[in-house]
């Protein structure tokens, strides 16, 4: 009998079926990996198992007993614990480690006896020992490293006598050494008969730690493999399913002159160095999975974070220590978090559109409001922004139209280089096509485009050259004609990134 048995699990959000009759099981002492591209249904499955969502239909059995969860605490009571990816959401930062480790004693205690700190410390120590970790108990949790925080969560999960522990991309923030430590603990937990579900994109780790893997695609569990009995190419092909045809890409002629270059840029948040060039009129895509360090790199290039390195615009070295330096050097940035950092939702369309180039509307300091209004009307027309008037507040516009404003505001500014970070996030297909047209149009005018995204099919459609980023570093580079989703995925998952012969074979077979 399996420890966990899931049969015909179904879940839909409104009209969208996110899980379609999924079968899945975990044996005692087994690590079962869960793979799939963004939106394949992995997190929905895991959230149902941990009680975050309720299932629509299907059966979940633990040790043969059917269970039904309506809240996370019910799942915990049945022995399912999760080590979340966002470790900070599970911990209270301003409490010492000892209190976070024994939070159940504070919250779940039925009597109001005074807390015995001696006992607390002893329990906390025991719990840490079970995961082979030592963290100073009086240290504030906010001062812990990510790996330490993860271990606190794991220690808590083990202490709750969980039979099944879910790991959501646990190694993404860890160093090699910390990853090794985590794997030792996982091996230890295996011997205790605990079953584990392991979500990851990293093929090498999965083959190292997991017994079996289930590949999900479009809400279905499409294949179950035993590790060691399948090649990573086959797994990636299964993840991607049918290859996307690339008919949409039109080969564009690029002058070949470099318009923008960064040389050994140290990105503070990833601790890695990045070098890249963009030609005039070239659309350079940077592909990477969520958490690969794309946004961090984009922010560093634009001077948002304090990065060190060399920038060259049109061959001239420029120093970029803040976004205003970047703007003056002729860079434009369309950030991922649109409402947070791309546009002013409490201001009007007109005020948003004129902001970066406000100087050109106010040569002597006085804003020429008529000119500003005319220019806004023209841009609304050209970009197809749907709004009742240029004076409408931006918060009343749809996401796609807000994104057009977020891009459009840079068009008045004399920019050479446009940096896009996930520009199609949260916008509908119509707006997406408008955004693509706009980007191609900018490139046709000789601008350089840097396009960061985790949606690989978008790059196959629009990018002239594609760089792949994994763990903050560029692991592969190819012209659009050489690119396949399989090759992108292989490089992005840290698969055999340097064996070019392998790629050629994949490219040859992966093409429609």
């Amino acid at each position: 009998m399996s420890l966990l048995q899931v049969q015909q699990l179904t879940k839909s959000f409104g009209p969208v079926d996110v899980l379609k009759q999924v079968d899945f099981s975990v044996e005692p002492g087994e690590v079962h990996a869960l793979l799939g591209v963004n939106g394949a249904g992995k997190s929905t499955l895991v959230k149902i198992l941990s009680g975050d969502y309720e299932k629509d239909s299907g059966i979940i059995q633990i040790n043969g007993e059917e269970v039904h969860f309506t809240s996370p605490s019910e799942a915990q009571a049945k022995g399912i614990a999760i080590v979340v990816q966002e470790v900070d959401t599970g911990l209270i930062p301003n409490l010492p480690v000892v209190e976070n480790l024994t939070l159940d004693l504070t919250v779940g205690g039925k009597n109001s006896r005074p807390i015995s700190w001696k006992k607390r410390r002893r329990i906390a120590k025991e719990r840490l020992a079970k995961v082979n970790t030592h963290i100073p108990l009086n240290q504030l949790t906010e001062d812990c490293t990510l790996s330490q925080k993860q271990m606190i969560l794991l220690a808590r999960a083990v202490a709750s006598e969980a039979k099944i522990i879910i790991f959501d991309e646990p190694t993404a923030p860890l160093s090699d050494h910390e990853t090794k430590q985590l794997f030792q603990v996982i091996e230890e937990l295996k011997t205790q008969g605990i079953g584990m579900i392991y979500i990851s994109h990293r093929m090498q780790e999965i083959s190292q730690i997991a017994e079996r893997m289930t590949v999900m695609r479009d809400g279905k569990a499409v294949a179950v493999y035993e590790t060691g009995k399948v090649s990573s190419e086959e797994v990636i092909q299964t993840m991607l399913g049918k290859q996307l045809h690339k008919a949409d890409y039109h080969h564009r002629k690029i002058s070949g002159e470099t318009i923008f270059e960064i040389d050994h840029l140290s990105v503070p948040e990833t601790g890695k160095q990045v070098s890249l060039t963009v030609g005039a009129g070239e659309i350079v895509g940077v592909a990477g999975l969520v958490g690969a360090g794309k946004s961090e790199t984009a922010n560093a290039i634009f001077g948002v974070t304090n990065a060190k390195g060399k920038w060259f615009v049109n061959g001239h070295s420029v120093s970029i220590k803040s976004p205003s330096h970047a703007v003056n050097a002729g860079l434009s940035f369309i950030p991922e978090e649109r409402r947070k950092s791309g546009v002013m939702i409490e201001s009007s369309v007109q005020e948003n559109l004129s902001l970066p180039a406000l100087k050109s509307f106010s040569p002597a300091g006085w804003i020429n409001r008529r000119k500003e209004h005319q220019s806004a009307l023209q841009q609304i027309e050209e970009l197809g922004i749907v709004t009742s008037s240029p004076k409408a507040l931006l918060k009343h516009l749809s996401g796609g139209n807000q994104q057009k404003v977020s891009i459009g505001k840079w068009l008045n500014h004399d920019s050479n280089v446009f940096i896009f970070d996930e520009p199609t996030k949260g916008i509908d297909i119509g707006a997406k096509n408008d955004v693509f047209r706009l980007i191609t149009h900018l490139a046709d005018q000789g601008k350089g485009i840097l396009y960061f995204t985790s949606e690989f099919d978008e790059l196959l459609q629009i990018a002239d050259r594609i760089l792949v980023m994994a763990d903050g570093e560029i692991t592969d580079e190819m012209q659009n004609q050489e690119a396949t989703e399989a090759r992108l995925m292989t490089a992005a998952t840290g698969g055999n990134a340097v064996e070019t012969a392998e790629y050629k074979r994949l490219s040859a077979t992966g093409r429609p």
Partner: protein
Amino acid sequence: MKQLNISDYPQQADLKERIVNFFMKFGTLLALGLIIVFFSLTNEQFLTYGNITDILRSISIVTLVAIGVTFSMIVGGFDLSVGSTVSLATVASGALLVWHSQELLVVLIVPLVLGALIGLINAFIVVKIRIPDLIGTLAVMYIINGVHLTYTKGYSIYGNMPMPDGSGTAPGIFIPAFQFIGQGRLFNIPFPVILMVVIVALVHLFLNYTRAGRLFYMTGGNKEAARLSGVPVNRYRTYAYVISGVFAALAGIVLAARIGTGQVSAGDPLLMDGVAAALIGYSVFGAGKPNVIGTFVGAIIIGILLNGLTMMNVPYYAQDIIKGGILVGALALTYFRKKE
């Protein structure tokens, strides 16, 4: 018309919506109108020229403080130190006149420079060290209060006063040219009223029609988005605190000229009135954000209330209750539908 048609419902909903919108936009002005009508009906002295100029003169100082507060609010900050800055400027101009017999120009410039310095200190604490604005400027408020009390040893300053250290009487007096700022009249209009109206108009033009004014608003609207659009947001936040300090110092000068003494702690009550005026201003014309015309209206409402209530013999200590009530009402108009 007994029967309701189905088509009546959307119109009713529309009407309700329009009424709500009307109150959001004009509720505060309506309240101002009602207050004026009420006081003029209950007291025949209320609507006389003399009383109106009295009200305007009394609010001129609060308005100056409130404009400074408005600037700090526009960039998304807060300045609690304005009251103590007013006190310091009042004492400084008094000390320069009475203890040091200085000329008019010096008596004007030194307090203004002090105000600007306090603004820089606030900016350093809030923008550079990143102490939250409410706490940081609260600390500065204490420091400035202490500084001006220490400087005067707790004594108020008046013409030819005995020196605090016992070394005879002070050489100077409050010269007439200085007193004109607070007590003089041009075309039979009190000078501080003219000063207030001109400054309100200039600040309004500045905030709404110049690039710098727009960038102040953008900085407060969304600091991160403004920064990513190339706006040097920290510079504008610094400017805002400096402007706030300068306006508080200007208010202190007018206050000293008005009462003819350098009164210690004279600015204390102005902090809350200034903040209240700026906050009431959010609701005027449904602006939903700090704006100088709204601040002016807020100061007028507070001034009229104080004047009218005093005429009705409501004790001053009870007036705060009504001030607070008006503030809650105005904020309700602003925030009631913001959640959506």
